């Protein structure tokens, strides 16, 4: 019986640590908002809140896709380029025509799907390291985009009003953008948590050899992860156009690293197997909020990247430290139970 209680204790510990991650991000967010509001009361105006959520939506959407990839012990660095390409491509697609919004979304997601498929096939079937593959596609897609754009830009005037409304309008006071992100997040989160095939993503990242021996279709799952990440990047690209209207070729340039930062800050283990899309989305919200806070506090925006970097280092150090602690605690419990 002693063993049972000891095990339960070990589990509680791990549970607390994991839940603490999402909670600690929430706490950091609240502290940040309270302090900033104290300094500048206009920060918490309804417009201010709306802006933060609008700005966080696209990053959070990408973070959800990235989570699926990172959980399988891979990475997708090409998402920034895909957003840029899709934003420009869908701008070209709608310019001067009155296209149906749904059609534009589908076209954008299809382009993203193709990019994701290329990544997925190279990583899963040709066994090229994900870092190399997606770094390569990052540059290739960016190059295509630049070549095509050739210095042109998409102007808001060319974009149909229905599409701009998607980016800036709202239903019952809630803007469309965060609504879309939340729906996608809940769907992917529910799938990963509650479906057998969803759990296999975690299994693959947790122990690839064991996953192979368990007969899990590893290649299929990794391909799926990249496909989802690509499709969500495509969706994000269309939303980018809808939100900003004006798109130059290097839209979302460098965003891949912001996305990875959001995911890691959100508690997704970079070595796979652990973490949730909710944490990743919260991480995106936190990074975006910090950006807005710096503007309100009139801090030079150059600091934003440095602070994001610091937060990343903090998150990884905390993970490592907690991981060691938890393992040691579990081991000690076992040792006691064995004796």
């Amino acid at each position, binding site marked *: *019986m002693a*063993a*049972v209680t000891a*095990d*339960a204790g*070990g*589990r509680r510990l*791990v549970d607390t640590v994991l839940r603490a991650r999402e909670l600690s991000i929430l706490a950091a967010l609240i502290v940040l908002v309270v302090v900033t509001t104290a300094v500048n009361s206009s920060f918490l105006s309804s417009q201010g809140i709306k802006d933060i959520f609008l700005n966080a939506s696209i990053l959070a959407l990408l973070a959800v896709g990235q989570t699926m990839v990172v959980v399988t012990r891979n990475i997708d660095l090409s998402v920034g380029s895909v957003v840029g390409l899709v934003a420009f491509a869908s701008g070209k697609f709608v310019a001067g025509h009155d296209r149906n919004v749904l059609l534009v979304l589908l076209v954008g997601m299809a382009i993203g799907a193709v990019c994701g498929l290329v990544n997925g096939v190279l990583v899963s079937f040709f066994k090229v390291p994900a870092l190399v593959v997606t770094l390569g596609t990052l540059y290739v897609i960016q190059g295509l985009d630049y070549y095509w754009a050739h210095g042109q830009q998409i102007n808001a005037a060319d974009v149909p009003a229905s599409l701009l409304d998607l980016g800036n309008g709202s239903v019952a006071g809630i803007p469309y953008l965060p609504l879309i992100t939340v729906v996608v997040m809940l769907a992917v989160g529910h799938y990963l948590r*509650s*479906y*057998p095939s969803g*759990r*296999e993503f*975690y*299994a693959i*990242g*947790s*122990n690839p*050899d*064991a*996953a*192979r*021996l*368990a*007969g*899990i*279709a590893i290649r299929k799952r990794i391909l799926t992860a990249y496909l989802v990440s690509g499709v969500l990047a495509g969706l994000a690209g269309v939303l980018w156009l809808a939100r900003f209207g004006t798109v130059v070729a290097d839209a979302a340039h460098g965003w891949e690293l912001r996305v990875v930062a959001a995911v890691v800050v959100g508690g997704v*283990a970079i070595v796979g*197997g*652990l973490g949730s899309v909710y944490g990743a989305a919260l991480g995106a919200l936190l990074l975006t909020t910090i950006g807005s806070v710096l503007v309100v506090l009139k801090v030079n925006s150059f600091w934003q990247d440095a602070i994001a970097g610091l937060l990343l280092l903090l998150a990884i150090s905390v993970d490592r430290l907690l991981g060691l602690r*938890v*393992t*040691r605690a*579990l*081991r*000690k*419990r*076992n*040792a006691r139970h*064995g*004796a």
Partner: protein
Amino acid sequence: MSESPPILALASVSKAFGAVRALQDVSLELRGGEIHALAGENGAGKSTLVKILAGVHRPDEGGVLLDGRPHEFHGPGDAQHAGVAVIYQEPTLFPDLSVAENIFMGRQPRARFGRIDRRALRAETAKLFERLGVALDPDRPARGLSIADQQLVEIAKAISRDARVLIMDEPTAALSGNEVARLFAVARTLQEQGCALLFISHRLEEIFDLCQRVTTLRDGRYISTEELDGLTPDDLVQRMVGRELDTLYPKQETTPGETVLKVSRLTREGVFTDVSFEVRAGEIVALAGLVGAGRSEVARAIFGVDRYDAGGVEVAAAKLPAGSPTAAMSAGIALVPEDRRQQGLVMDGSIERNIGLTQLRSLRRGPIISRKVERDRAADWAIRLQLKYARLSDTVGVLSGGNQQKVVLAKWLSTDPSVLIVDEPTRGIDVGTKAEVHRLLSELAGQGLAVLMISSDLPEVLGMADRVLVMHEGRLAAEIPRAEATEETVMAAATGRTRQEAA
């Protein structure tokens, strides 16, 4: 015994990995209601055979027969589908997932809309554990479970699958007496239910206790299949080894000199506790025990790769700073690690580079490393250790396991150590080279080297050691002089059946 076709069989199977012929023309029949033993030394091809049955490897020649019909497994999933469950030597769990999820991965009980029914998942796992008599929480993550508990999770996995064929690759290596008894009870229940079982163990008494027939392999070749009734352990060893034990363990008599290595009250929390012993010059001391007893961890702590929480290490009466392999090396300790591919060698490096690695400073002519000195020294060692190679510039990856081990030995002996720690020096090495390694260790001890040998190979321990230290669950359970060391005394201490005070 009915004459229905065996549930699972191998017919004249051969399998090669590169130049290494792991299996040659091996046949095996697993019948329902029978526990079949697979015997053979390390490196005899047992694990390869298991992986073919499990669908991990496909045979180059010959084939797998399922219910008497040729059948091809395209992957581990196929084999599982056909009712083949495997418990590997190293448990294959997902550390981040819960115990229950580990057991039911891919076959989770479903609720509406195909979702996982978590309550049923937990309940079914609890039921399995109850049947096995195990007190494990289904919801805890697999990370941090002891090896014995991980093994039990693997067994629960196999049982939950209603496997018709259960293959156990050295499942008892890390289990205590009680746990082995529990495992055997489960195995016998499955046998009565008509399952075919394949059991692999280095402990002969377990084979005789549990199994009805035995197939023996030696160096990848099929030797025999026979009833265990009427067979003696000596017969079986004879088939496995194929030669008399004496020539395999050429032990020179030596008179031990001064104490060179002194370990006192070494403790690392949760890993090993209060380990004290001495090794004198000219002495071979074996550190025996079950896998997971903490032997390699002690060696790693002595050499400074891992930290320790209390106690100390002295070399030639001088205290060794903790946690510094550099200090350990300059004090004269050499460690030949357990896993030569991962820890002992740079697999893509050449033979000469690997041998030179520990002595880069002495290879210098001026500020730069001289290729000529490096090559000369390597050639020197290659001759002394009778290394079989084509060119010294070949990568070590192309060498056989035994010759790779010789390269690791050369690499460390070239540092001119006073203490040599060898961890599983002959694991996965063919019998011929094994005898050469043993002769070498014996010669080195004769020249006054203090040797600490960690080994799971009992005949090796008994054949080579002047003294046997036995570890059990992180503690030194016994110290047995050469004259009193037998399989029984060592295994008794290793499984914790006797609690002898360590000297």
